[in-house]
């Protein structure tokens, strides 16, 4: 034993301890006052004192509130809730198995700009985490990690819970065992949030990051198709407006950190039951969202079931993908987009969607050298600038001006179109080009005659 253990004059020691404790208490009291004054200055309400611990907390451990088991691992224990659903399970309008139909092109388009890492989602892991906050950095903990994957005829969901932050090492190791066998990750906004966060956690725990590099972040595909029509591309909104999933008594994501704190404080597992449910539905939505997006890519016309406007967005997205792949001039690629625009127009669109479709169509015609068809579109757009909106009318007018300057050489007509275009609002570069064109046309009109 060290020599200070033979405390014969223990009385002095006790006095000292009291003195230290008093000094500490005084410091703490001072700290409290300072913090309160600072909070008051910043206009923040004081933190409410926590309520006294609940009496029956002991009787509601997590396994009594959520189905699942406590795992004892080499790195400590944690809680796992397993759910198994048949692949034919319908989550909203579509069955989970729809996601298994995704192949090659569809996956490339969905995972653009990175690769999917696999040929079929049967070897993917669907990931969604619930965290103690959105701040990022090293202080945010993914206390509930939901993984989903297809296994034979079933879809399996593993939800790993840290019953306290000290169980993180165990959860991460368990997740590792599951995730490292998979070939690709499917997430919603996981590129910006879930995966970097998990990477941070693995680094902190000094464990190897197990997730594959192939990653399909559905947020990107969803934005391409639904952004023009829906005001928000949040998962909850997509579920409701696209997937046809309606949640009952769902806990809002913003309350999740608070609920976890309440659970930690009280040990009452009932707090977390809605979070498990919320996370499970999120994982399922990843699956049908992937399925639906793949289906739209495979059979764009199926968008007509929802809204013809989606078809326009889809057509534009297909064009962009073709450009990125360097095959924008391949007729098959062009036909697909043209069909989207034509069918959408035929099905009836709101004025500005129609103008967008018409303009996109016209530019494809131009690209293919189908000048008459392009002209018809432009003239139609030029006739109704009020309805089409300047964003579409202006490029059409400019195209008409170009056409008449260089092809028909009707300078007066070209000048008229140019001036009409110049009257509509536009960017400074465009404005410069237009004034240049107007000057040139004016001098051509005067020039040869003079």
């Amino acid at each position, binding site marked *: 034993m060290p020599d200070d253990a033979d405390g014969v004059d223990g009385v002095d020691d006790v006095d000292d301890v009291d003195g230290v404790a008093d000094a500490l208490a005084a*410091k*703490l009291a001072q*700290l409290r006052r300072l913090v309160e004054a600072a909070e008051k*200055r910043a206009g923040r309400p004081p*933190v409410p004192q926590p309520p006294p611990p609940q009496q029956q907390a002991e009787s509601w451990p997590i396994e009594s509130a959520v189905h699942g088991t406590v795992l004892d691992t080499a790195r400590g224990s944690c809680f796992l809730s397993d759910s198994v659903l048949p692949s034919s399970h319908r989550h909203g309008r579509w069955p989970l198995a729809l996601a298994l139909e995704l192949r090659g092109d569809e996956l490339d388009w969905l995972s653009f700009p990175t690769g999917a890492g696999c040929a079929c989602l049967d070897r993917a892991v669907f990931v969604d985490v619930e965290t103690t*906050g959105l701040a990022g950095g090293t*202080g945010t903990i993914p206390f509930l990690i939901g993984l989903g994957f297809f296994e034979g005829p079933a879809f399996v969901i593993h939800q790993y819970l840290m019953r306290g*932050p000290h169980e993180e090492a165990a959860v991460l190791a368990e997740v590792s065992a599951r995730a490292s066998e998979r070939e690709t990750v499917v997430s919603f906004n996981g590129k910006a949030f879930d995966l970097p966060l998990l990477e941070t956690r693995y680094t902190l725990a000094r464990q190897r990051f197990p997730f594959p590099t192939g990653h399909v972040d559905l947020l990107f595909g969803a934005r391409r198709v639904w952004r023009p029509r829906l005001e928000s591309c949040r998962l909850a909104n997509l579920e409701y407006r696209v997937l046809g999933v309606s949640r009952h008594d769902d806990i809002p994501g913003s309350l999740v950190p608070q609920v976890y704190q309440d659970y*930690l*404080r009280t040990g009452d597992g009932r707090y977390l039951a809605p979070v498990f449910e919320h996370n499970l539905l999120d994982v399922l939505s990843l699956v049908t969202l992937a399925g639906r997006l793949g289906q739209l890519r495979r059979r764009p016309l199926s968008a007509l079931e929802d809204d013809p406007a989606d078809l326009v967005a889809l057509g534009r997205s297909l064009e962009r993908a073709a450009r990125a792949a360097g095959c924008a001039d391949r007729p098959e690629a062009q036909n697909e987009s043209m069909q989207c625009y034509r069918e959408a127009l035929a099905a009836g669109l709101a004025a500005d969607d129609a103008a967008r479709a018409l303009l996109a169509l016209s530019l494809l015609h131009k690209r293919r050298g189908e000048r008459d068809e392009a002209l018809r579109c432009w003239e139609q757009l030029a006739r109704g600038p009020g309805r089409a909106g300047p964003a579409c009318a202006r490029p059409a007018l400019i195209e008409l001006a170009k056409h008449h300057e260089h092809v028909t050489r009707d300078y007066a007509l070209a000048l008229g179109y140019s001036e009409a275009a110049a009257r509509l609002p536009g960017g400074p570069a465009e404005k410069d080009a237009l004034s240049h064109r107007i000057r040139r046309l004016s001098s051509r009109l005067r020039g040869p005659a003079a």
Partner: protein
Amino acid sequence: MSALAQVLDELRTKSADRITAWQTLEARPARFLPFPEWLPDRLRDALASRGIAELYSHQRLTADLVAAGRHVAVVTPTASGKTLCYNLPVLAGMLARPESRALYLFPTKALSQDQLAELHGLVGAAGADIKTHTYDGDTPASARRAIRNAGHIVVTNPDMLHTGILPHHTKWVRLFENLRYVVIDEMHQYRGVFGSHVANVLRRLKRVAAFYGSRPQFILSSATIANPGELAGSLTGEEVDVVAENGAPSGTKHFLLYNPPVVNAGLGIRRSYLLEARALAAAFLARNIPTIVFARSRLATEVLLSYMREVRPAEPGKRSRISGYRGGYLPHERREIERGLRTGEILGVVATNALELGVDIGQLDACVIAGYPGSIASSWQQAGRAGRRSGESIAVLVADSSPLNQFMVNHPEYFFGRSPEHALVNPQNPLIAVNHLKCAAFELPFAEGEGFGAAAAETAAHLDYLAEQRILHKSGNRWYWMADAFPAEAVSLRSAATDNFVIVDTSEPKARVIGELDRFAVPTLLHEDAIYLHGATQYHVDRLDWEEQKAHVKRVDVDYYTDAELAVKLTVLDELAAEPSVAGSCATAGLGEVEVRSMATIFKKIKFHTHENIGWGQIHLPEQEMHTSAWWLTFPQDQGGLRESDLQGGLVGFASIIHHVAALHLLSDVRDLHTAVQVKSPHTGRPTVFVYDSYPGGIGLAEKAFEIRRDILKAGLAMVSGCPCGAGCPSCVGPQAEVGAGGKAATVRLLKEALRAG
């Protein structure tokens, strides 16, 4: 005769009566030592190719200590080749162990860019594959990943380390696993509140490094201060060796102390020091002598700048060759000015102490310091901007009429007595420490038994407190961060307030942000109808949106500036120490925690040049509240028949003199302390004078003042008794108009009374 010699000659003949001291520091030859034997040939050759054949003695000593594994602080004046002191051993260490990493911390961004250029040069000449990168707020997102993984030397500032690196340390694994050196340049900048923050940031740095298994060596550089070893120790929490001998050469330097002439002997009023500084600077600029003028406040900087531009207007079609430089300028403006100074496009610059730092602005020959900058170390640092290694240079310190300034110019033996100040930090300031404890817990959970700059028991008590506040959660013998927040963002290292106000210029249809200001300065500088000066442009504050923290301003051209007054209410919250009076009838001293409520009341409009008061207005802004530490002196009610008005004047005079003397003895800026006078204090029931720290929670000044109060009182008594004025002047107890006819005598009496108490 050189242009500078001509001005010196003129000063000698025409201004002799205003120059209270003329110190000529003779040119000093260099003291060299050979390269150390451990220096790799590649570095030896690289140095030779850059014309360096041997080292200054301090460079060699520092490098040797670092090579021997010690933490080292090197004390060197401006331009003495200090960067080699740390670059040499760091580069040698990296050549030997290429996986090693180093972190360079500079107090400002601009500085780090210059250092980078120099470092690149040396690395290039050595042909070494050592990647050096700056990582700060300006680093493009696309470059960040590469720097995090591949940068051998990462150059940054404490703020970026605090918010950008430590809270994201998992992205910096390579750096932290191999962190071998931490270089801290301009260490003397890290004092007071800023230093107390930085000491905590460094604790966090060491904690994160330890997590990844590294224990870096610290190399610090400092301007001359009294306690480099102590400061380095407080900042790093390590035992640090000090190298204080300077082996670099210097040219002849004239240092003048200059006292503006008395214009009203009765009232003890001197000619404005700003006008005198203008005249001096004008004499230099008229002869094309590159000149820097230092002013103590933003306001003084701007006033001087407009004066200087009148003296030397821009040539038609060209930009002015006179420029301002201070904290409120946006980064790109600052960079532009630094470049202009280096190329010579800018001839004169008016700066606040933002330029005190080692920013490389090339050779300046003259320096005018308008007003004692608050510390001897700062004075030398500012004077160091003029004159480098050879040639003659001049620095003139122009005193204002405050007691401290007058003391300095009238006691040159004190000023030149090489008695530099102590730089004080108090990393244990409860507010500062607990904020960084939060940041540290965010970065890594705390284990039981772990101390953070304090004993484990105290740290544990604070952690429990944070858990009670639901910011942390204790689970499995560790405290974990559990709030949905990013704590580093709520803590600013540079100012007391965490939230700044934005200044929006609405002169043009498209409003733009021209600067920002910390919360505590807003009521006196950005109240409605204030004239706010920025870049020598005047702005009228049209509207101050307190809730939104925005000031809407418009450009104006007026011939006045505004000056606001602050009313202060002080309440004692807790008395921590008291010195009981001997017989109950004499003065007593106390120390404790106080609450200070301050409110801006009115502002005055002051005309340029004449400085006459041409109007005033009221300020309607909420009261601001602060808890801090104070030292106070309480006097017996009965002052032996002293009239009420004289007692009042005496207390004001007493407060004024001990405020200045305390700042002098505590080696702190006058603005770091405030005083309050209560004729019948609610706490003591008697006449009381309070001296308190101007930062929430205090930074240790009041405690120190309480400790050395006898020295302060004695010096105060000597200053008042020794002042030749009749009944008070701005240079001792304050002008007679403020303290009354009997104020000076009453002050002397109170000082004696206070000294009697022991």
